[in-house]
């Protein structure tokens, strides 16, 4: 077996060069390009860019559409993540207790994660369109006054998208939690139950602290997915409308770059998104810090 010092020898470290090169070209490069493009007036690949310094920043921060996008992204994350993670944890804990039919339940919970985003879009267009499933159900039960174009009403477009985020995220995350909870020592849970702890108390005061690091990781991932990848579903279902009622920062990056031919603006929003992503991760890290880290 090679010693630790030999593994750290410069000769061996050279073996990491290809992966470092890959990382530099495909991760650091685009990241740096984002900051550079943010200083350009550029309509797209077919056009000549021109340097305009910080002009794009002023333009973005003075734009009401950007303000709406910040507000919508904040609402989306602030509702989706605090609902998704506890729900997923509870479902995951339930799965881990191996109730009757838990294998089927695992498949059902995980299935939204196996459906492509375009299929998801088509499913929910069918469900939420004016003549779709939800309105049909409402009419059937006599709630005609509740019928509305869910994706085209400013009051319901963003909540509908958040509901879809939850549909996609809760079950899938629950299965991941169940997998992690399965690795906990069974005797700890049994001991808590023998000591008279109820199911809820065992779940939140025994199991949850033991997997807190994992909860933190999944919370960070769901936060980033929600913040960064909402554009796809919005493009499919609402195109950011009506007006700007469902425009998020992620969709604004897409719309400005691909639809409205303003790459500089788009990348300024991209930088803001990046900074918000980092800030959000630090916040989650602070909120879900493990016992050991507190003790340090």
């Amino acid at each position, binding site marked *: 077996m090679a010693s630790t010092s030999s593994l750290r020898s410069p000769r061996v470290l050279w073996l990491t060069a290809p992966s470092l090169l890959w990382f530099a070209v495909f991760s650091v490069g685009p990241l740096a390009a984002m900051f550079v493009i943010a200083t350009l007036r550029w*309509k*797209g*690949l*077919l*056009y000549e860019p021109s340097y305009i310094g910080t002009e794009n920043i002023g333009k973005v921060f003075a734009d*009401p*559409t950007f303000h709406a996008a910040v507000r919508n992204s904040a609402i989306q994350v602030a509702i989706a993540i605090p609902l998704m993670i506890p729900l997923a944890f509870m479902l995951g804990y339930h799965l881990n207790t191996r109730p009757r039919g838990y294998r089927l339940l695992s498949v059902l919970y995980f299935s939204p994660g196996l459906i492509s*985003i*375009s299929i998801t*879009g*088509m499913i929910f*267009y069918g469900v939420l*369109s*004016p*003549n779709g499933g939800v*309105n049909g159900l409402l009419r059937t039960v006599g709630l005609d006054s509740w*019928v*509305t*174009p*869910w*994706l*085209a*009403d*400013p009051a319901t477009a963003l909540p509908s998208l958040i509901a879809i985020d939850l549909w996609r995220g809760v079950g899938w995350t629950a299965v991941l939690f169940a997998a992690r909870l399965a690795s906990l020592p069974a005797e700890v849970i049994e001991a808590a139950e023998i000591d008279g702890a109820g199911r809820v108390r065992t779940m939140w005061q025994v199991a949850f602290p033991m997997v807190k690091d994992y909860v933190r990781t999944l919370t960070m991932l769901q936060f980033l997915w929600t913040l960064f990848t909402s554009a*796809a579903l919005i*493009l*499919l*279902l609402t*195109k*950011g*409308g*009506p*007006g*700007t*009622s469902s*425009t998020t920062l992620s969709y604004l990056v897409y*719309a400005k770059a*691909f*639809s*409205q*031919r*303003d790459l500089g603006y788009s990348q300024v929003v991209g930088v803001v998104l990046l900074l918000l992503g980092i800030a959000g991760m630090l916040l989650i890290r602070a909120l879900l810090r493990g016992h050991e880290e507190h003790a340090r």
Partner: protein
Amino acid sequence: MDHRSLPRAVRAVAAFAIGALVLAPTLTACGSDDAESGGGSIDVVTRWTSGNSAAAAQKRVFDAFTAETGITINVTEGLETIDDQVENAVAAGKSPDLVIVNLFDKTLGWLDAGVTVPADDYVKDWGLADRMKPDALDEWRVGGVAGGELQGLPFSGFSWPLWYNTELLTKAGVTEIPKTTDDLLAAARKLRAAGIGPVAVGGNDWTGQKLFYQVAQSFTDAATMQKVMKEGGYCATPSVVQGIELFTTLRDGGVFVDNAAGLIADDMYASYYSGQSAIMSAGSWAYTESAASGTGIEKKTTLGGFPVPSGSTFQKPTAYQGFTGVGFMITKQGAEPDHIDKVRQLVTKFYAEATVGDFVKDASILPPVTGDFAASATDPLLAQSLKLDAAVDYAVVPDVWIGSASDPIIQVLTGAYGKSTPQQICAGLDTATKG
């Protein structure tokens, strides 16, 4: 014209997914040296895709062209995002020679971006100048006026009237097709009382956008409307605000079907063809498709215009017509000395009288060239359409003027079909136009 039948967003995703698979091998062939046959090859991206009423006529042209010249055609079907498809191919150095596409949104910038070349000389050199309708050519010129550079060769002209299901109107007690907006409001009330939807429209896509502009320009002259569409100033132009107020009055008076804000073109066609609603606004490309629906709707339909208010700048109900439908845009690659003759042979084949007649018959296009195509106008709705000039005034088609602001404008207008106030609508349109 923007003949979209599915939501752009759904098509966009399809474009990225399918395009990667389909375009990769096909567009890789673009710009390749001639190797397939003695006559070489030509690379074409076309908006006339499978299922389009013009696809069969196009295929007959392609097949005959290859049989006569020995030149093979590498065809790529352009999806809803054909503009992005072509731009990406050009940026990757895999430009097609010829793009068969509408003049709208991003394609309006292709000449400026160097994707395509001016077509003025080709029209003359290829012997088409005397046959092409001057109006059709002007619509394809930069700025939409005589003297501007020609961005491509127009082919597919369209008319875009209101469709009235007279059987349903009669059933609801509406004895005459509405000519004024007051008539329309009264008709909507009667239709609703009879359980029939009034005007079906896709308030969430381009169909709603076109109908909105048709109403919004009721009190505005063409030149002012074009300027506002191009530069903004909706709120600052009283006659346009008046038109927007008319739109919200009609909306609030129940003229549009319930929840129109959430509907798209497919919903509109389905609602009208199935008899759930009595009126819709649709272009001539739908004439043959309506007959193909098998509902018999083409026999119950009378074509007309959108009713006008008192004090309107229009004397008669309004419709659209134009030639910014599908045409031929020649790329820089296609204009290369070793490519242009093949492009010429293919493009001029489309303008042969028999071929134009074929398209008139199959796809109900308005011919871009002079000639007698009455024998080809066998579709009953097309025959009605050809007599529309006496019954309607023509409004300004927005596509060329709103350009790449089209999508943000649709976002604003989705709200207009919902509950937005005239002030919110005009402010939103100004923001969308100015970017």
